[in-house]
């Protein structure tokens, strides 16, 4: 028996799930329905569960107002190799929007630059495309986008 009064593997799993994902079973991994039923059977809210519900409320309250710049930076720092996975989630549109805006700005800047400046050497123009596409998308797609 552990020190919160719950015993056995089921109790341990319930506590591990709540401590990791919070007290709302909708946030738990799939396949934990039995453990969710166990949570529903908890009578008087034990202290450990009340504490975790408080953490959920804090996190939710922060979410209601706006993700902080620090959170947005964390999202932006997710490696691009996982971009397809991340785009399934709620903030995936933000990455798409930044990438699209960056691409448009880069293309507009290049068009203006080409029309108002002396012709650049071909290797410089290619280098610009490399830099711009890397800045806008975080990866080099210059071969696909280059005029």
């Amino acid at each position, binding site marked *: 028996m552990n020190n919160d009064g719950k015993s056995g593997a089921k109790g341990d799993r319930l506590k*591990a799930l709540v*401590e*990791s*994902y*919070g007290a709302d079973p909708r*946030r738990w*991994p*799939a396949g934990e329905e039995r453990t969710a039923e166990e949570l529903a059977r908890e009578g008087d809210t034990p202290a450990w569960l009340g*504490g*975790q519900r*408080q*953490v959920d409320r*804090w*996190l939710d*309250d*922060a*979410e*209601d*107002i*706006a*993700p*902080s710049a*620090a*959170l947005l930076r*964390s*999202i932006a*720092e*997710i*490696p691009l190799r*996982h971009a397809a*996975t*991340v785009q*399934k*989630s*709620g*903030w995936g549109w933000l990455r798409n929007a930044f990438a699209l805006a960056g691409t448009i700005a880069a293309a507009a800047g290049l068009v203006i630059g080409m029309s108002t400046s002396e012709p650049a050497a071909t290797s410089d123009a290619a280098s610009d495309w490399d830099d711009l596409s890397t800045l806008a998308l975080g990866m080099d797609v210059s071969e696909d986008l280059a005029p």
Partner: protein
Amino acid sequence: MDRKRLAIDVGRALADLPERQRAAITLVHYQGLTNIEAASVLDVGVDALESLLARGRRSLREKLVQHESQEVQGEQRR
């Protein structure tokens, strides 16, 4: 504590977490990634992800409970 202030305090407490704990909470709680997806992003197993989440949440709770009690003490002094 009003909600805007609370959100700022939670944001600060999150920012103070070790990077991987913060990333785990961000991915699972705010981005809604599944445990498998989040573990993949962090290049860890699901057990390690759950450990990061649990340590992050525990640390957040300690920081915010401490902060809240300091706020209450401050209000009582005024």
